[in-house]
């Protein structure tokens, strides 16, 4: 509020002062112009004029100094527009200065010359002569009046008292005098006669001196108003009246008027002479005055021009300055700047255009910001979608570096890809066997060699086979013909191993069920038939034939039993009773199962390494069967080997959110053939002489029912190791293949 008021004050104060100064200056000039020609008026008002001039000059000078200071300060600071203003001020002042100075010097010359030309020695001489002529004409009259007075004095020689007064009165009227006075030798009035009794008559000092020296006195006396009089005084000759008792002579003073006409003429001459000599005397002061006046005019004009120059320069430069400031602000990214509208000229138009431009820029920026936000939102949405996808997505740029990789991609490949955006394919390949195989297989597609590709990639790690369903597509580039190379590629892949396994298992289960059904049914009649044949015909047959029959039926029964076993195993594999999840002490379970296989003669040595208190949430029956199968598999692998050894270990593997329990069963047998290693867990895949080929397939099925993993690998020295990992917290596989926690109750082993 206060600041606003101060700003307003500042905004209006300077022009107000300037206007005041200029008005005073103009006033001073008007006063000068009006009174300078008239000496009297100029003289009377010169203090006022000087004061007004001085104040105006001081105000203007102050204004100019303030402006100059500001301009210099702005110039040093390189403030926008300062240079332009300085140049404008210089130009304006220069433009004003030259004509003003020329006019000034010419005026000075003109005035001085004009004044000098008033005076002329001839004129002076003539005036002087005219004055002398007038004086002499008057003096002639005065001389005659003196002789008249002398003759009057002779008449008065012997008179005194009343007679004298009467005589004076008569003589005065006769002589046409204004006054006749007789003075005693002591200069007291003895008698007097005057036309009008104004002042008491007296004998002036001059007269006394003159009388004392020359015995006569005559003087021409101006009376004012073109009236003159002649005063004459003479001693009265002859003896003093008897008994006067006074020494010296008496004096007669007579005052005669000079004719009005003559007086007026003489006065006119005197006036002219006086005026002329006054002018001559005042010539130099007058010149000084006029010079001073002109100088003041010059000074005021200059100061006004300079003040005006500052004002005009500011007015002219202001819109350009604001344009400069606005442009700088825009350059710095401030689009909120709006310049005040200028006058209706080109500069105003420029400002208007500038404002329009800024507005459009601001709008464009706002739109771009909004679309940027939309883009960000889309990107975030995409990231969320990608993050929630169980399908792995990897996008590469044209430079062959990872641009986008979602969590699922990382999970499938077993490396953290999401945080490694920007890494090159080789760097990713170096981070593990799975990514290495994946990159190797998909490199041509990621390099964008094929615009579209679909296929499967088989990976192997930790003895397990992973099948990935892949689809890749070249991304559109930023333009140009070589779209594929310019834009990189995207590859989408799903881990379909489990799906394939499930399909295969389902198929096998179906086969098993049918086989069991188709084969098991005729087995019993075959066996019964064989046994009946044996019972009926063996006792009645000859020794030799009986032996054959016995052996044959025995073989039939034995083979039927073997076949039944096989079919049972099959149906076991195909059957899928309900999973009964409970908390199971895995260590205890392992020990119990292992105890059953404790070393007997000719049997492999079983060693145990079990972590105490290892509990998992699982179906105890299934786990037990799983352990049986694993150990039996190892035993079968060690068949016929003297130093067979089986090492069973159970331990927990802390895995963050999803800890697992790991059971390993290692043997020192011949190991697993490379050809079967990848298909080890499929039915009827075996490298052993014995076994149904279903044991490990069942193991795999059981493990997967618990959401665990199973793997096989050959040991470096000798033998193989099977590893089963079961989640410590139970999960079930639902329809989407998504693992979810289940409620767990303590498991009671069925009796």
């Amino acid at each position, binding site marked *: 509020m206060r600041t606003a008021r101060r700003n307003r004050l500042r905004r209006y104060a300077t022009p107000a002062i300037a206007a005041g100064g200029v008005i005073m200056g103009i006033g001073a000039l008007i006063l000068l112009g009006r009174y300078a020609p008239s*000496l*009297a*008026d*100029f*003289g*009377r008002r*010169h*203090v006022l004029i*000087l004061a007004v001039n001085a104040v105006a000059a001081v105000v203007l000078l102050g204004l100019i100094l303030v402006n100059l200071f500001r301009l210099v300060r702005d110039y040093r600071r390189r403030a926008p527009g300062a240079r332009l203003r300085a140049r404008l001020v210089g130009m304006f002042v220069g433009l004003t200065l030259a004509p003003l100075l020329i006019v000034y010097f010419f005026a000075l010359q003109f005035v001085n010359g004009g004044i000098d030309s008033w005076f002329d020695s001839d004129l002076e001489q003539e005036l002087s002569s005219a*004055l002398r002529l*007038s*004086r002499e004409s*008057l003096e002639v009259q005065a001389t005659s009046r003196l002789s008249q007075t002398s003759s009057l004095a002779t008449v008065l020689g012997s008179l005194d008292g009343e007679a004298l007064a009467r005589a004076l009165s008569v003589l005065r009227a006769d002589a046409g005098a204004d006054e006749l006075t007789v003075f005693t030798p002591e200069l007291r009035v003895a008698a007097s006669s005057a036309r009008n009794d104004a*002042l008491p008559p007296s004998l*002036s*000092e*001059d007269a006394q001196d003159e009388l004392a020296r020359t015995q006569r006195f005559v*003087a*021409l*006396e*101006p*009376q*004012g108003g073109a009236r*003159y009089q002649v005063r004459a005084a003479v001693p009265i000759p002859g003896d003093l009246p008897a008994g006067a008792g006074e020494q010296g002579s008496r004096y007669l003073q007579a005052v005669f008027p000079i004719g009005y006409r003559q007086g007026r003429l*003489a*006065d006119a*001459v*005197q006036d002219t*002479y*006086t*005026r002329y*000599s*006054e002018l*001559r*005397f*005042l010539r130099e*002061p*007058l010149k*000084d*005055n006029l010079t*001073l006046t002109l100088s003041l005019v010059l000074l005021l004009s200059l100061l006004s021009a300079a003040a005006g120059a500052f004002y005009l320069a500011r007015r002219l430069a202001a819109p350009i300055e604001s344009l400069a400031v606005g442009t700088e602000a825009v350059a710095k990214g401030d689009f909120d700047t709006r310049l005040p509208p200028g006058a209706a000229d080109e500069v105003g138009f420029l400002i208007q255009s500038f404002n329009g431009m800024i507005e459009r820029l601001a709008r464009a920026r706002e739109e771009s910001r909004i679309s940027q936000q939309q883009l960000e939102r889309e990107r975030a949405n995409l990231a969320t979608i990608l993050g929630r996808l169980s399908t792995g997505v990897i996008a590469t740029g044209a430079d062959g570096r990872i641009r986008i990789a979602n969590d699922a991609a990382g999970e499938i490949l077993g490396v953290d890809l999401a945080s490694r955006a920007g890494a090159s394919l080789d760097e990713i390949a170096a981070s593990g066997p799975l990514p290495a195989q994946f990159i190797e297989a998909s490199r041509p597609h990621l390099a964008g060699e094929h615009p579209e590709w679909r296929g499967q990639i088989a990976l192997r790690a930790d003895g397990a086979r992973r099948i990935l369903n892949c689809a890749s597509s070249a991304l559109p580039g930023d333009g140009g013909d070589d779209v594929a190379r310019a834009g990189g590629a995207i590859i989408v892949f799903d881990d379909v191993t489990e799906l394939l396994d499930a399909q295969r298992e389902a198929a096998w289960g179906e086969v098993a069920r049918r086989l069991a059904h188709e084969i098991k049914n005729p087995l019993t009649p075959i066996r019964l038939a064989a046994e009946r044949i044996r019972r009926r015909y063996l006792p009645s047959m000859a020794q030799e034939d009986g032996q054959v029959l016995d052996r044959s039926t025995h073989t039939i029964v034995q083979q039927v039993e073997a076949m039944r076993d096989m079919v049972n195993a099959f149906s076991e594999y195909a059957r899928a009773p309900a999973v009964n999840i409970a908390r199971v002490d895995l260590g205890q379970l392992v020990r119990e199962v292992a105890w059953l296989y404790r070393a007997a003669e000719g049997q492999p040595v079983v060693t145990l390494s079990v972590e105490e208190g290892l509990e998992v949430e699982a179906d105890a029956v299934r786990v037990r069967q799983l352990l049986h199968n694993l150990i039996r598999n190892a035993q079968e692998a060690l068949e016929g080997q003297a130093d067979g050894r089986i090492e069973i270990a159970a331990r927990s593997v802390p895995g963050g959110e999803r800890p697992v329990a790991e059971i390993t069963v290692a043997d020192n047998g011949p190991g697993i053939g490379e050809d079967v290693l990848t298909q080890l867990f499929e039915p009827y895949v075996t490298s052993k002489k014995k076994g149904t080929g279903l044991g490990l397939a069942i193991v795999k099925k059981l493990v997967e029912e618990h959401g665990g993993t199973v793997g096989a690998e050959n040991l470096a020295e000798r033998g193989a190791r099977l590893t089963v990992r079961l989640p410590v917290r139970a999960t079930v596989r639902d329809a989407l293949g998504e693992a979810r926690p289940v409620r767990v109750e303590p498991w009671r082993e069925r009796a």
Partner: protein
Amino acid sequence: MGLLCSAVLHAQEAGVEIRSASTRLDDGVWYLAARIDYRLNRETLEALQNGIPLTFELRVELTRQRSWLPDEDVASLRQDFELSWQPLARSYLVRNKNSGDQRAHTTLFAALNDLGRITALPLIDAALVDDAENYEVSLRAALDQQQLPGPLRMLAFWDDDFTLESEWYRWDLRSGKRL
């Protein structure tokens, strides 16, 4: 006359000096009498002889003296005398501008003498003067620059060649004692 002028000029420094001043009561009126020395300098003399009349102002002030308060102005009087050179009559004219009385003198000395002799200037009616109070009379004589012609007045503004003025001369109205 030239000799006389230089005598005037050099006799004493130019200026105005009040030699004496007094008041007397006559017929119920207080009268002022004074002797004033007017001495012209070269510039004023030159101006005079070039036809420029010089006006001398005589200012008289009567104040009632008070103990604690500032003095009270009772009366003030101003008399203007004009001294001019009459080239026709070759005389100096002394004119009382207030009364119009004028006297011509053939010499400047006589004119200045006349100018400086105040014999009976009525000052104030005695009835207006309180017997119980003390009154101070102040007298000052000076050349009135305001009545000089303009250009000279401007000159007078800058230099003091045309500044001729006396000190204030103060005395007690009744006792005549100088204060």
